[in-house]
């Protein structure tokens, strides 16, 4: 998502060294900057903290309590016992395993397909507007609506996909159901990935690629040696957000299988324990553990991609 300088009228002075700002102590300008920054950021920070602050703290507290809405009088503080219960439960590990598989496979395939889609969107020579609109539809359609479409499609005796596979009922078999869920996820999120990759793709200068071809590079070499490295920041953002979202997959599984037959993800497991079993203690614990897992994934990404992280550099001055 970067723009280079458009050739508009504004004269651009060459990027000389930064103006002579005071380096050691805060100048008036720097102080004014800070004040401005404070006022600019305050509303956003306020909203974010006000909305999520108390729930976050409350969730952490709940995870340390034994609190079941069906037995409200038995509520008491039990320290980390909930965490012990969750981490020794087969359901948690199975859900984690399922979630990781779905995440890895769907993000991987979505990345490849998204790259292909980005190429098509970038270079296709006719019907460009139409293809772009249509390819964005899977992203725009409400997830729940799309999930119903897939569910009805795989229902024996009713669905065209089920009929294509000999009236099978893949949603009852763990492996097949997970495959169906992955397909639904890929269909839904490829446009998003494609959009973000398109932004990165458009940064790659065409003449660089042409020069490489003139020098005898194959398209694949041009792609891997030139395009990919230049797209690194866009790829990071795309992969990061997509992985974080995919790990918390909920809507598709909820509609397709309700998490039955071994297809529960960590989010549906948390939902079941929180809202069906009304076990606020265990449910909150699961949520906190999900958060920790997601945080670990984010850290791995940012460490892995390093300086390409947004906001990590001091900003181009």
């Amino acid at each position: 998502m970067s723009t280079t300088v458009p050739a508009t009228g504004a004269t651009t002075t060459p990027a000389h060294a930064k103006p002579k700002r005071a380096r050691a102590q805060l100048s008036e300008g720097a102080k004014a900057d800070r004040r401005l920054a404070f006022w600019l950021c305050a509303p956003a920070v306020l909203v974010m903290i006000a909305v999520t602050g108390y729930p976050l703290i409350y969730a952490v507290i709940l995870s340390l309590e034994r609190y079941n809405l069906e037995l409200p009088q038995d509520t008491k503080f039990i320290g980390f016992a909930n965490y012990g219960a969750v981490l020794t439960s087969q359901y948690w590990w199975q859900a984690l395993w399922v979630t990781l598989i779905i995440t890895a496979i769907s993000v991987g395939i979505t990345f490849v397909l998204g790259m292909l889609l980005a190429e098509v969107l970038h270079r296709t020579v006719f019907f460009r507007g139409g293809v772009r609109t249509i390819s964005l539809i899977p992203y725009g359609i409400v997830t729940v609506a799309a999930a119903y479409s897939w569910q009805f499609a795989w229902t024996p005796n009713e669905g065209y996909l089920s009929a294509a596979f000999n009236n099978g009922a893949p949603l009852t078999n763990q492996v097949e159901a997970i495959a169906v869920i992955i397909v639904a996820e890929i269909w839904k999120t490829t446009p998003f990935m494609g959009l973000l990759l398109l932004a990165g793709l458009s940064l790659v200068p065409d003449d660089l690629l042409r020069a490489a071809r003139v020098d005898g590079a194959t398209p694949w070499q041009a792609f891997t040696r030139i395009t990919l490295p230049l797209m690194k920041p866009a790829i990071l953002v795309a992969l990061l957000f997509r992985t974080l979202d995919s790990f918390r997959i909920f809507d598709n599984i909820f509609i397709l299988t309700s998490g039955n037959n071994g297809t529960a993800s960590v989010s549906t497991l948390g939902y079941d324990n929180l809202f069906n079993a009304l076990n606020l203690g265990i449910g909150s614990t699961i949520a906190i553990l999900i958060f920790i897992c997601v945080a670990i994934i984010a850290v791995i990404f940012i460490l892995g991609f390093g300086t390409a992280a947004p906001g990590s550099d001091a900003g181009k001055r």
Partner: protein
Amino acid sequence: MIKRRGSRSVRSRVYRIASAAAGLTLAGAALSACANANAGTGPVALNFYLYQDTSMATQDAINNCNAQSHGAYTISYQYLPQASDAQRQQLVRRLVAHDGSMDILGLDVTWEPEFAQAGLIVPWTGAYKAEAEAGTLKPALQTATWNGQLVAVPDNTNTQLLWYRSDLVPNPPTTWAQMIADAEQLAKEGKPHYIEIQGAQYEGATVWLNTMIASAGGSILNASATGPSLGAPAIKALSIMKELADSPAADPSMSVQMENQNRLAMEAGTAAFELNYPFVYPGMKLDNPTLFKSFKWALYPEVTPGVPAKVTIGGIDLAVSAYSQHKNLAFQAALCLRDAQNQLIGANVGGVPPTIASLYNNPALFADYPFHADVLSELENASVRPQTPLYQVVSIDLSHQISPATGISPTGTEQSMASQITNALASKGLVP
């Protein structure tokens, strides 16, 4: 300031008198309005929460009761989501937050212990209780009882029958063993032979399990609902379920089937037997009139030959919210909503069996309910699902053990069920 007092003072006096007069008139009007309002305030609005009944039977009942209340109350029909779990979540979430805008609640028959234990619904006492119990079927009353108190009033109930194709099976089987044998025979002859039963991983599977265990003479929980009972009857029930799952009589989609898919499979002609609620009868009549001619019903098959099956009942009970501002009126309105006249409408228009026993002898029921005799005999001998505030957890655990049914191993499954129930009742561990 002493300023031109003359004209001003006259004017101001006029103004003062005029405003005083106006004020008095207004006050008087307000007072009389108040008086009128107090004398006959408009009807109290009672909010009745239930899933949307598209058959209009519930709306008819509401209209009847509003008319009969003579202005005392107006029941307003508030919709809950269609799915049972979603309904429960909405109700619990709002009641736990002391929502005062809910008065009458339409509860599934398994929720009463949970809601009552958490103090979300109020017990029925005195005259209301007497009226609720008069002439009501005992198993239905059992679902509305918790800790010796009546916490709701049964509205409608539901029970499964054995539906079969008389062109394939002239004499219906009376036991499970016989039914499976008949189906296998049909399979050998190359005729439609499936036995349709709800085998998906959901509440319907728990209902099937409960029916089988109760029919085998046992129960899922012990008498005080503090631990599992299971044992030999459970092992017997599980072996029959396993036998069905392994036989050619099992529908290949059994592990994903719910009531509606069973109905559709029967209507499509691939099945010979079906264990389902009476809603399949008008469905078959409408969708497959040819097949309808040989579509017959019988009593639910026995587990132990000679011992009638104890089929698990479903249905709706009406409860009054503990946070309602108009509890008295809510009790009266609830009693009206489920009185004999409205239950008859529910049966004929809505297709749900009544809970008032005398209605089964009422000829007005017979036209749309030719199977009323079998339904009544099953209802009088029915079983209910385990009564515990932790029923949801127990049910989820159980349904995951028995679905897909091919994964059942009679002794092994019985043991893991027992340990899971013990954990569930101690509120330990996770639900899948």
